[in-house]
């Protein structure tokens, strides 16, 4: 499962795992496989991928607010300003350095 707890830090450049498991998860499709930077970290929160399916949500997972450049997500489909950003909250086990 990617990295161990506590390893990721604010400022780290991370890649979002490019996976689509059959179970409930909170990672939007358009950031999968993309590279961003951790802007802040909160939690830990119960893991929704467990709690959605009757599990106890443990171990809790930290939630990383990852900032992406819009042009890195959409390429030429992003027709607005080059400096624009997007922030998405992603649980730590979806991220790799």
């Amino acid at each position, binding site marked *: 499962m990617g990295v161990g707890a506590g390893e990721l830090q604010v400022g780290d450049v991370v890649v979002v795992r490019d996976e*689509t498991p059959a179970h*409930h998860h909170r990672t*939007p*499709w358009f950031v999968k496989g993309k590279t961003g930077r951790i802007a802040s970290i909160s939690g830990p929160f119960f893991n929704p991928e467990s709690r*959605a*399916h*009757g599990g106890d*949500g443990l171990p809790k997972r930290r939630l990383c607010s990852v900032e992406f450049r819009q042009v890195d997500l959409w390429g030429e489909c992003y027709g607005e300003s080059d400096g624009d950003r997007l922030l998405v909250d992603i649980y730590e086990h979806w991220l790799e350095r």
Partner: protein
Amino acid sequence: MSAPHDRGGLPTREPIDQTSHEWADWEHLVNALVGVLRRHDLINVDELRRGIEAMAPTEYESSSYYERWSASIEHILVEKGILSAEEITAATREIDAAWG
């Protein structure tokens, strides 16, 4: 590629409709019922979302917001054996009989 709820960036030219409708009583009921079920630990928000995502894509697309919640509440409560689909159907037909 993606599930029907995972909508960010899907192409559309549709403008944002900024009008808001007055909630019907049943919409207030569904919204509150989820809160009550959460307080009783009978359903959590992750289960609610999973139940919504379990809807067939065509039904997800054609349902209103609280119709999706209704589908999910039923899915989860039946799955947990708290209610059966048959008794929900029977109670629904009672409503039809009483109110037309």
